[in-house]
């Protein structure tokens, strides 16, 4: 099962990658929203973990564009920007869930397992 991790911080991508690979997921990485859109098309991941504050294109704009292109895309936000207005904006853009960074590993794994199962059922 392939997961696209989108974060401009190499440190956070490394942490998420290790967490997911230890559980048997295959990880594809992108450094910003624009790169995420390209990677998504190439890799067709089951799930996207998306940061918000990034250069080039932020996570909210990337989710909005992604959902326009693929209404079945499953995106979970992973961001430090846990303000009520931002959580709402992310969900309205089409995100399925919002995890506030820094994340608890179990919280991430539970969300990934949930949406990976949905992806498996629909494939």
């Amino acid at each position, binding site marked *: 099962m392939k997961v696209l991790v989108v974060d*401009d*911080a*190499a*440190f*956070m991508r*490394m942490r998420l990658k290790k967490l997911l690979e230890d559980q048997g997921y295959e990880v594809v990485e992108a450094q910003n929203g624009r790169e995420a859109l390209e990677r998504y098309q190439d890799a067709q991941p089951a799930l996207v973990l998306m940061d918000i*504050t*990034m*250069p*080039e294109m*932020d996570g909210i704009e990337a989710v909005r564009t992604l959902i326009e292109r693929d209404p079945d895309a499953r995106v979970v936000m992973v961001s*430090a*920007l*846990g*303000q*009520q*207005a*931002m959580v709402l904006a992310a969900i309205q853009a089409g995100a399925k869930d919002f995890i506030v*960074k*820094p*994340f*608890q590993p179990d919280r991430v794994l539970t969300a990934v397992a949930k949406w990976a199962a949905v992806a498996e059922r629909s494939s």
Partner: protein
Amino acid sequence: MNPWTPDTLRIWNKLTQPALNRAGEALSNLTAQPVRLEGIGTRTVAWPELENKIHLDHPDRDPVYATHLGAFGLFPADILLVFSEAAAAGLLAVLTGEPEKQPFELDEMAVSALAEVGNIIGTAFLNVFADTFQQPWEPTPPRVTVGPFARLVAEVFPHWKPQDQVLLSEAVFRVGDSVMEGYLVVVPRPWSEAPQAVAKEGSRGEGIGG
């Protein structure tokens, strides 16, 4: 120019410790160690006074490590987190779970980790204020710079004027048994600056300098 009225200062003082508490919780989650941030005090100072203070603690031979974030929404501002080399090394050791490197080296992953510390602490602040005022207050991607404080100021705030007043919150980081000192500097921007322009500036870690 002093945009800090007694009312705004009172609000800032009131919200600073809750914001530091939230930042401490966030760092605890990130490091899997108990982290506590204690505010020493918040006050406004003119740039030269701030520079002198940091220069006394950290002369030019003792570079400081700074993470800069722009902020837009509630009000346009710049946030600067400043650490000594010892504090930066200590934080990195905690973050990576590896012993402190001697001599201290700032490689790509270390820059990214320091940027993330700035992002977590800065955003925890913004979140507390945003939720209190029910208005978004978003950061730009963090940028890490290293060097004498005066040079950092010239790089990050090229239009600074000596009479400009900035808000300084000093905090002590307690990570396990270690105590590290850091400064949080908030500089309001003129309202005339377009938020979009603030939002798109810079990218994480690219500002690193020797």
